[in-house]
């Protein structure tokens, strides 16, 4: 979104999975809008370090890399400790990291079911548990979970992935209810098909079908999902909580 305003000036955000796709677009959007960011990724890479250095310099914001494998709960805890040790307020948490998976219900192996839930639901659940303790103390915060329209629509091949993202929506709504008295908001974004690496796990005919069903005859750009995440992080959405925003171009 082109903007002359810095919608997140003075805010600090934690974003998971921001080295590519939707997470990277959110990182870019937040930096452009003046947020300091703890940029969480699985491991260090020259491309990621270059990205955050450029974004930081161009926008005069602090971007601190935080590395952890979300399957490793000890690493996850150390990451939280690093954020906590910075003594910065955490105004925004974006739970973005996740893995895609596409298989028919009767052909979905149990180990894959467990792995997808570990990454897409259990890790953000634990991470949010830790970080909401900081938000409870400061009596403010906006939590954004990146779910999927697969959580809302019964798409073939999405029993595992869609269920993990539906769990995330449920968690988000419960957080919104339980923590509202602490000034904490929680909302989900449900992107439709988006032009990221995750498309590689989908058959080409499905991608074409969705494109054709979409009134705009296109699939989403990651920046279009980031626009919704910017809105929910900003003070433009202070009275919005417990909601799921579909960003799917109006797929029927």
């Amino acid at each position, binding site marked *: 979104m082109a903007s002359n305003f810095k919608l997140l000036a003075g805010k600090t955000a934690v974003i998971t999975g921001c080295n590519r796709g939707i997470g990277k677009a959110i990182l870019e959007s937040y930096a452009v809008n003046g947020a300091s960011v703890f940029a969480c990724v699985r491991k260090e890479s020259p491309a990621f370090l270059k990205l955050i250095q450029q974004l930081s310099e161009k926008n005069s914001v602090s971007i601190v890399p935080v590395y952890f494998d979300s399957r490793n709960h000890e690493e996850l805890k150390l990451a939280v*400790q690093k954020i*906590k040790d910075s003594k910065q307020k955490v105004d925004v948490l974006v739970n973005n990291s996740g893995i895609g998976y596409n298989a028919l219900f009767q052909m979905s192996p149990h180990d894959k079911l467990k792995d997808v839930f570990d990454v897409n639901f259990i890790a953000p659940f634990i991470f949010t548990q*830790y970080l909401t*303790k*900081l938000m409870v*103390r400061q009596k403010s915060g906006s939590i954004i979970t990146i779910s999927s329209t697969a959580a809302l629509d019964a798409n073939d091949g999405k029993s595992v992935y869609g269920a993990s993202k539906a769990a995330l929506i449920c968690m988000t709504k419960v957080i919104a209810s339980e923590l509202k008295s602490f000034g904490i908001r929680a909302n989900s974004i449900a992107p439709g098909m988006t032009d990221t690496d995750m498309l590689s796990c989908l058959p080409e005919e499905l991608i074409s079908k969705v494109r054709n069903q979409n009134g705009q005859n296109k699939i989403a750009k990651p920046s279009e999902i980031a626009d919704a995440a910017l809105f929910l992080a900003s003070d433009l959405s202070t009275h919005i909580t417990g909601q799921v925003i579909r960003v799917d171009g109006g797929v029927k």
Partner: protein
Amino acid sequence: MSNKEKYIQVFINSFAVKEKDLVTLKYQGVGTWDSMGHMRMIAELEETFNVMIEMEDILDFNSYAKGIDIVKKYGIEL
């Protein structure tokens, strides 16, 4: 301020109770120590002592006295 004094202060701040009543204070023993108050107190303790209290300990933390044992587990002398 000693660590014990800090611990006491967290309880006074979180639950609006008097120091003389702390020794026998239990979870849900006063209206302010409900589940929300519990979360607020844990967050305050973590900040005061710069620790991250494990979920099992958050659930076991059912009295002022029990809390002393739990906080000690994190290397805090009380």
